[in-house]
């Protein structure tokens, strides 16, 4: 069965610094990959997704992620973070055969400090 690992439970970073949030998944079969963000007291919002094609995916709010099949990773990056990026970030994966069923990682809390 699929599993998703987000090794960092919390990532503190100063404003305008770059950040990378790590995500690894367990299976090498064809998958769809997603990053969701959850701002305080709000629902989950899709940041970006990889379905096929280019391995570098650009999302909203200046975030991007790169699909690396050999390393089964889908790390999220932003070159310069803002205070408003403080939130919980979830990586998720689904097998292409059941694209609606998402397996989520445990989440990484990004804490941006001034």
């Amino acid at each position, binding site marked *: 069965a699929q599993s*998703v690992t987000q090794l960092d439970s919390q990532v503190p970073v100063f404003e305008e610094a770059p950040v990378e949030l790590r995500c690894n998944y367990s299976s090498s079969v064809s998958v*769809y990959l*997603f990053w*969701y963000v959850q701002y305080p*007291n*709000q*629902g*989950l*919002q*899709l940041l970006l*997704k990889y*379905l096929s094609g280019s391995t570098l995916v650009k999302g909203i709010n200046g975030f991007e992620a790169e699909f690396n099949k050999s390393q089964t990773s889908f790390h999220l990056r932003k070159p310069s973070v803002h205070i408003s990026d403080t939130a919980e970030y*979830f990586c*998720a994966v689904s097998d292409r055969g059941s*694209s*609606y*069923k*998402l397996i*989520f*990682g*445990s*989440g990484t809390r990004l804490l941006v400090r001034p």
Partner: protein
Amino acid sequence: SAVISQKPSRDICQRGTSLTIQCQVDSQVTMMFWYRQQPGQSLTLIATANQGSEATYESGFVIDKFPISRPNLTFSTLTVSNMSPEDSSIYLCSVRTTTNEKLFFGSGTQLSVL
């Protein structure tokens, strides 16, 4: 896109009672799901709510504990029955629209069981 209204947003309940959570979507959607997010853990799929028929439950979840209804294409309820403190979680409604792979999430119901 889809706008999801989930009620209640939070509740504190006594052990042994039941709580019904409602999920209303502003447009017809193909699939509706219920997820659970336990404290400090990732989201776990409870079940797929099927219109007009019994929900499809994931391993570890049963209908007697989490009865689900979906009378039409825009509305679903999840009941958490005979609650215990272990049921304290955030419960999220999620929908998939007809047009893309994206899942939309409600803002969640934070349940605390005393």
